[in-house]
């Protein structure tokens, strides 16, 4: 089952190539092969619907992690302008966070995204998109700057989780994430977050407190990675598929829970099949949200943000104060 999406997609791509070959041959050769092509095309579409029409949560996890899925830089590169800013001013620059000033549809924004690599070499440099404390401190610094300068914050979330290494613990990973949450809660400017791939745990939430949260149709967002959840609850990371099903980590689930605000649909086969369209749709949604939020006063914006998170939860009783309880 592992990475089934990529495996099955390979068969589909092979079929796609054969159809293209036949089409080319049809033009240059005297024999008419239109009927064969049409049959193949129909088979292709059936197969595509069969594979991608109804993705299970676990298949969505693989879709969210697909190596060709558009990453933060694919979105950032389509902004009108981008001036990258580097470093945490204390220790180093973390390449797993790409951030800086940018123009989105002519509007100044502070953009920041978690960046994984496309290949092994880039993944090693970017630590597979797993952010270290230095990256989170860069995020805090720039969120603070944006808030001071009245520039809205736009984030792209795409990480399995925060880096779990020795150095990260030594550099107080917990504190680094906690202070991101603090900075985003306090920010005096609109914040729009987009979950473009995998939103894994607190490491994702560090860029995720926002006035408007967008999620791609096949992205996932969860309290822990399915592997992590299975290991924690059942001591067995191989039960990840079961965990994925239980965690309610899909965009549709989270929209129903009121944890995200908007779902951007993906083409059949996933965002990577038509990256340009997906990127421009997401940027359009971000822009619309910024326009709406920009009309609010700072106080109203911050009050609405407070109430939005204040409400999230599920508990049984009405809020009551009880004096003392017996054990």
């Amino acid at each position, binding site marked *: 089952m592992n990475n089934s999406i990529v495996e099955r997609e390979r068969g589909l791509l092979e079929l796609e190539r054969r159809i293209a070959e036949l089409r080319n041959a049809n033009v240059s050769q005297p024999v008419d092969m239109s009927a064969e092509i049409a049959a193949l095309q129909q088979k292709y579409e059936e197969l595509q619907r069969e594979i991608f029409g109804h993705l299970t949560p676990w298949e969505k996890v693989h879709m969210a992690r697909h190596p060709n899925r558009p990453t933060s830089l694919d979105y950032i590169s389509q902004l009108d302008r981008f001036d990258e800013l580097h470093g945490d001013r204390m220790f180093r620059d973390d390449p797993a966070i790409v951030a800086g000033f940018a123009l989105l549809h002519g509007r100044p924004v502070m953009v920041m995204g978690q960046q994984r690599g496309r290949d092994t070499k880039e993944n090693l440099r970017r630590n597979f998109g797993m952010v270290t404390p230095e990256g989170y401190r860069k995020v805090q610094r720039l969120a603070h700057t944006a808030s001071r300068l009245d520039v809205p914050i736009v984030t792209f979330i795409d990480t399995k989780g925060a880096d779990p290494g020795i150095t990260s613990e030594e550099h107080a990973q917990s504190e680094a994430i906690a202070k991101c949450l603090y900075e985003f809660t306090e920010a005096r400017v609109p914040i729009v977050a987009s979950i473009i791939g995998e939103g894994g745990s*607190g490491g994702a939430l560090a860029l995720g*407190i926002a006035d408007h949260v967008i999620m791609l149709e096949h992205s996932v967002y969860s309290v822990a990675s399915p592997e992590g959840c299975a290991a924690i609850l059942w001591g067995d990371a191989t039960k990840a598929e079961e965990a994925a099903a239980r965690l309610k980590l899909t965009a549709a689930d989270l929209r129903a829970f009121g944890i995200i605000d908007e779902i951007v649909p993906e083409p059949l086969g996933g965002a990577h099949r038509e990256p340009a369209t997906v990127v421009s749709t997401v940027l359009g949604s971000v822009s619309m949200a910024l326009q709406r939020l920009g009309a609010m006063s700072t106080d109203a914006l911050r009050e609405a943000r407070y109430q939005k998170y204040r409400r999230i939860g599920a508990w049984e009783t009405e809020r009551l104060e009880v004096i003392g309880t017996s054990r």
Partner: protein
Amino acid sequence: MPMPDWLRSRRGKGADTRDAALWSKCPVCGEVLYRRDLAANLFVCTKCEHHFRMHAYDRINMLIDGDFTEIGAAVQAGDPLEWVDKKTYPVKIAGDKEKSGLSEGVVAGIGTMDGFEVALGVMDFHFRGGTMGTVVGERLTMLLEEARRRHLPCIIFTASGGARMEEGMFALMQMAKTTAAVTRLMDDGNLFVTVLTDPTTGGVSASFAFESDVVVAEPKAMIGFAGRRVIEQTIRQKLPDQFQTAEFLLEKGAIDMVVDRHDLKNTLVRLLQYTSQKQVRALQQVQDKL
């Protein structure tokens, strides 16, 4: 306000009589300790000074002068994901209620410490490993909001294995909710202190635990973001024993102080004293307005 029943019974009987065992074995040195002696020594091993994990009400009893007005005790866990594995989530919760004698993973309320009125939240590892779900987040948020409303300093004792898996994203979002309440409390100039006890990890350590003015920890408490096992699996080597202990974090500059449990109340009271004048002035201003 009358003394709550649980507190009266505690005060009357002394040690935790609910625990069937009269004896406890120290997990560090192996010494067999009489429960009554252990309780008298604030649940610190009389031989090796190992700090046992404390029950929330024992902790409150150790810190609070008299009455303790609980906040949010009526808030009980829902089951938003309709979670089932070997058991359903409600069955797991019922089991932990029975075992721990607690209604959830945190007890929150208002009381006085050496005469200082304070908002106090105490997490308890004995309830689902101190994991943070909606109830923990909600009760702490209610506590932080009440502290802000009454211009009180707030102290939260943490003990947590992280976010509660069975509540999925609702659990993760409690990090955002508690943080929002912390920022408002702190913006108004109220003192916020966290005391990190064994263990404090994951979503709790990566939110309010490290957002306070002063971060205190108990000796040898395990504190970190990623669990020890996860790191060992990632780097494929064993970690040194000292790694992620309170003492290690102190050396790395991540926390303010490591305080022995016998000195803890005095330390907290001293911290409260630094801001008590400010608190008096704030209350005065409120009264003047009335």
